[in-house]
């Protein structure tokens, strides 16, 4: 049913740390790898070996350059921030209510937004309603694809316990991705969000996303003095010893430095 549940028992989602993400795209590759051979239709590519390659992905990593304002009249260095983006499993998911067939739904038990691909007519309206670009119509299958939060991993008792998390989280080499229940204030992800000031993307769109992003930590400010300066000062100023004599003798020569 395309009516949103009034509340969900859990709010499973991701917390993405923009401070530690190195933009390696390992999450993109592992996501495509797992999801192309598991839940639903495969994630197809078109013209994969041509100059005009294109394909379906459930997770994409953007990179942004952020230019801080001038500090004490001095221009500041720009920051490069890698920005992974997938479905945010919103509380007020606009993609669910627009669906004419009921293929799109939000699960009452854990808040995951899924597509029942047998019912999807591929009208694309859910992708139009999503402000985040989280849904992509697969050109080969003609149905809408989106992040499932690896629903076929997180509850899968055939997998070792450490693998029961989304493929992107499991693979991230810099620990920039965290998975957990954001409805539970005591969970690791909720504590992370509270301590690091996690934020929503496009809060003005009113979607109430479950996934949160952690801001990059502020960069160190360069000190105004040179910390090595004291060590580079001339040591012998008092005019004693061999070095001092040599200094005076050389200065006395024609053209010598005073």
């Amino acid at each position: 049913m395309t009516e949103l549940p009034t509340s969900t028992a859990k709010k499973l989602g991701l917390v993405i740390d923009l401070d530690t993400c190195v933009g390696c795209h390992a999450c993109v590759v592992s996501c495509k790898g797992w999801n192309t051979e598991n839940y639903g239709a495969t994630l197809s590519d078109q013209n994969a070996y041509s100059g005009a390659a294109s394909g379906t992905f459930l997770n994409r990593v953007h990179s942004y350059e952020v230019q801080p304002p001038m500090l004490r009249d001095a221009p500041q260095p720009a920051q490069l921030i890698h920005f992974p983006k997938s479905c945010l499993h919103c509380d007020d998911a606009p993609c669910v209510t627009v669906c004419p067939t009921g293929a799109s739904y939000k699960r009452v038990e854990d808040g995951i937004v899924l597509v029942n691909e047998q019912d999807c007519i591929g009208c694309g309206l859910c992708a139009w309603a999503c402000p985040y670009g989280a849904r992509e119509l697969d050109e080969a299958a003609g149905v809408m694809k989106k992040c499932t939060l690896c629903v076929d991993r997180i509850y899968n008792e055939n997998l070792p316990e450490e693998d029961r998390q989304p493929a992107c989280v499991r693979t991230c080499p810099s620990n920039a991705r965290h998975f957990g229940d954001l409805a539970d204030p005591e969970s690791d992800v909720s504590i992370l969000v509270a301590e690091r000031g996690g934020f929503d993307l496009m809060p003005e769109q009113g979607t109430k996303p479950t996934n949160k992003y952690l801001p990059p930590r502020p960069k160190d400010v360069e000190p105004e003095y040179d910390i090595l300066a004291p060590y580079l000062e001339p040591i012998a100023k008092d005019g004693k010893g061999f070095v001092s004599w040599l200094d005076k003798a050389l200065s006395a020569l024609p053209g010598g430095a005073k």
Partner: protein
Amino acid sequence: MHPAPSVIIFTTFSGLGFGLLFWLGINPTPPTGWVAFAFFAIAYLGAVGGLLASTFHLGRPERFLKAFRQWTTSWLSREGICAVATLLTMALYGAGLVFFGTKITALGWLGALGALATIFTTSMIYAQLKTVPRWNHWTTPALFLGLSVAGGALLSGKVTVTLGLLVVTGALQAFAWFHGDGRFTASGTTMESATGLGHIGKVRAFEPPHTGTNYLMREFIHVVGRKHAMQLRVIALLLGFVVPVAFLLASFNHWLALLAVVSHVVGVLTLRWLFFAQAEHVVGLYYGKR
């Protein structure tokens, strides 16, 4: 937004078809026999042809029957139900006029109401989208209704009513363009709010996720076609409204009326193309584009 021909043809011709059905339904002295047959054939050609064209943009058109299920939340579902109910009602009403020369007034009014509901639900598919600030406004349903009812009046040969409706709708279209130009900025969604990085400074897209294109960029970012937007707006206003009004004022004969209809249809196709091509989806911000 990508201006898909299937959706432009659908909204233009089904709009005209349902507009004509509206006028046939409320006409106190409707045509009967072969004349009624001709009018209903034109209306159904537009309405059904347009609906069929719209199925071409579906990924799995063979499953279209499932789209009637979610009328409680989905405007697309409501539109499907309104369209089918109206077409069935007006088929009965039309059969009465064509084959028996009898007018079942209540059925006509019911069908006319259904035609308006169909046009309104179609427009709400676009107007409901917060992600496209240009569409997310009362002018979207007002324009869809105005264009359909004016076009239907033109097709049914009601000269005075058509003149009034064309002038009003043309003015509304000009206002919608003018007002719509500022709505993306007014919506408050920016690259800074999209990335949440505005507290650091000005955000610029540095690298896209992939070197090539993707579904999102094809569907939601359409920059090329906007180059001639201003000229196309003038052309749409001239062909859609000014020329038909001039032809109808000149003197009423069937050839001029036919030219007025052709001009109006080309004008509406042009403004519908602009409706999609000029609509900017907020997802473009993630790609540093609009």
